[in-house]
């Protein structure tokens, strides 16, 4: 699992051997919590392993990770706790693995959420990305499996993508440790507030629904000015999600 010198960033001041320490399962006294989310089979566990130096078993089938795994790494003497969430296609249903993922992003309030997507299946993966961006405003898009995308002649304009999503985009091939240094640096910059995200909000919603969402979310904001994801809570309330109603009553969302 050693890092190989296959990235320009290896010589960069922001990234050097001293800067990164893989801490394995030692997750004590961390400064930031980082969540790893994404569709099934996009290589979240591989990214997780590349960052922590752990060897969570990875497998080429959707649904490999059913519980959340935790690990840690240290970068520029700041400790990051990394939580690998089960892969999900959306956050709108109720199976156990989806709930693990959703609850963590919502209630665990990670400092950064890294959304791992399959570059060769970007459009489908974006469904989940857009949902996550409604929940959190500190996110990094990890455009993984770039090697596969390249092999199937797909090229992605990362800057356009980053601009449209309003979050930093880092292309990686985690299996070959490519792009990992850049990913770490970007996570660090989002966590420390160097990069401010302006996440995309879902636009193409029918007018009457959009009106209801605006109305409700304004009301939520009025009552809870500090709540970051009033729009998403509005979605869930309009959906009639009993878990969210319950959580709201218990004051777990603030």
């Amino acid at each position: 699992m050693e890092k190989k010198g296959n990235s320009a960033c290896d010589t960069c001041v922001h990234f050097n051997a001293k800067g990164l320490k893989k801490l394995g399962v030692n997750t004590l006294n961390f400064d930031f919590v980082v969540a790893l989310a994404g569709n099934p089979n996009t290589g979240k566990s591989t990214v997780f392993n590349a960052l922590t130096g752990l060897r969570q078993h990875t497998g080429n089938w959707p649904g490999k990770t059913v519980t959340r795994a935790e690990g840690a790494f240290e970068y520029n003497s700041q400790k990051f706790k990394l939580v690998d969430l089960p892969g999900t296609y959306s956050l709108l249903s109720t199976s156990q693995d989806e709930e693990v993922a959703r609850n963590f992003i919502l209630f665990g309030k990670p400092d950064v959420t890294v959304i791992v997507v399959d570059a060769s299946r970007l459009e489908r993966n974006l469904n989940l990305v857009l949902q996550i961006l409604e929940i959190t405003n500190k996110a990094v898009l990890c455009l993984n499996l770039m090697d596969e995308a390249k092999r199937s002649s797909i090229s992605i304009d990362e800057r356009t993508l980053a601009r449209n999503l309003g979050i930093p985009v880092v292309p990686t091939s985690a299996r070959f440790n490519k792009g990992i240094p850049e990913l770490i640096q970007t996570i660090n910059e989002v966590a420390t507030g160097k990069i401010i995200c302006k996440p995309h909000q879902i636009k193409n919603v029918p007018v009457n629904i959009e009106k209801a969402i605006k109305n409700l979310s304004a009301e939520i904001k009025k009552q809870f000015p500090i709540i970051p994801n009033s729009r998403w809570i509005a979605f869930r309330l309009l959906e009639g999600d009993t878990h969210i109603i319950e959580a709201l009553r218990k004051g777990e969302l603030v």
Partner: protein
Amino acid sequence: MKKKSIEHIIALSNDLRWEIGDDFHDGLAEGIYADASEIANTAISTNTIKRRFRLDSKIDKIVTSKFWGFPIMFLILGVILWLTIIGANYPSSMLANLLLDNIHPALKSLATSIGMPWWLDGFLIDGVYLAVAWVIAVMLPPMAIFFPLFTLLEDFGYLPRVAFNMDYLFKKSGAHGKQALTMSMGFGCNAAGVVATRIIDSPRERLIAIITNNFSLCNGRWPTQILIATIFIGAVVPDSFSSIASLSAVIGIAILGIFFMFFVSWALTKTVLKGEISTFNLELPPYRPPRFWKTIYTSLIDRTVIVLWRAIIFAAPAGAVIWLISNIYIGNESIASWTIHSLDGFGFLLGLNGVILLAYVVAIPANEIVIPTILMLTVLTSGIVGGEGAGVMFELDSVNATGDILRTGGWTLLTAINLMLFSLLHNPCSTTIYTIYKETKSVKWTTVASILPVIMGLVITFLVAQIWRLF
């Protein structure tokens, strides 16, 4: 005050939901899709031909075809088992030679030279040490071959295709198609298979998957199957066919297990676990060339060593127990031989014998130690002079020697076949039972999952024995 405002928000949401009507969910989902496609289209540019996807779909057309799907599946399983059986032979006998023929006598003479009392020396060296050594010699080589091969297949992306092939059968039996994935995990380890059922959304179908996972022949039971098939099934055909014959027998047992899995799933859905079958999307991931050495390394470290370690932890106390029950005498019979004799009648009915039944009781903690236990107990009761005395796990440098001992102990082809059947159909190991309890949080279903296979095992072996004896 706060409570009031929260209720106000909830009330407002109820009103708004009423206003929007039924299409909120669809409207939102469509909005998300539209946004996703807009964003994707501005960022992606594709070069006309997607060549690799074509290759993928070509492979898929063959491995998931109605005609070739199953034969290819069994062929792959066959090749993996064949490599395991053939490949494990030499390292196994080398390990046996080292641990049993060299280190064991050395330990014995060391014990004598420091004046250790006979019972302590027997308990520790003949009980605990030999059990552990046996487990390592028998289990390590096949695991070190089987697990990496299985993992390579998994990393390549073949497992979802298996699920795809079997989806129809699972649907037919009223279970969830994803059960094919948990079944495949069960072939490695049932406890892992039970945990993997979390990917199944519906509690009903998940419960079915949990209860029937034990019918996947797990890693602890493969060696038993392989060894017994090699000794007895391989022996009834000419030499040149013996490895094919034993291989087919093992695959036959595995398929029988899959059949029982369907049957029990079906029976459960027709009786206590009735309900709707839920549908799901199964994504066939692209084939990915596995990173060979990395896979070998992680599967050795993560799976092999962990499973082996667990086996050792369970084998050590079991070795001690075996030594104790064979050396504590009530009257002029040891506990072990008394139990074996009283179980013999019942064992005969099942086409088994008292030794096998007692071995399964002693081996409840771990399936892996069944064969060593059986050998030891056979040696004990049949009065073969093994040179070591009562309660010593017997050392076997070759498959032939094992066969000789078993035949002297009165084993026949029927005993072998029924042992293979019983090894497939009996209670899950203690780790799996505990895992089932953790996952279901239900004593009732844990009990069902533990008892059901034993009852089936008793019934099946009984029937086989009766029919066998008719002819």
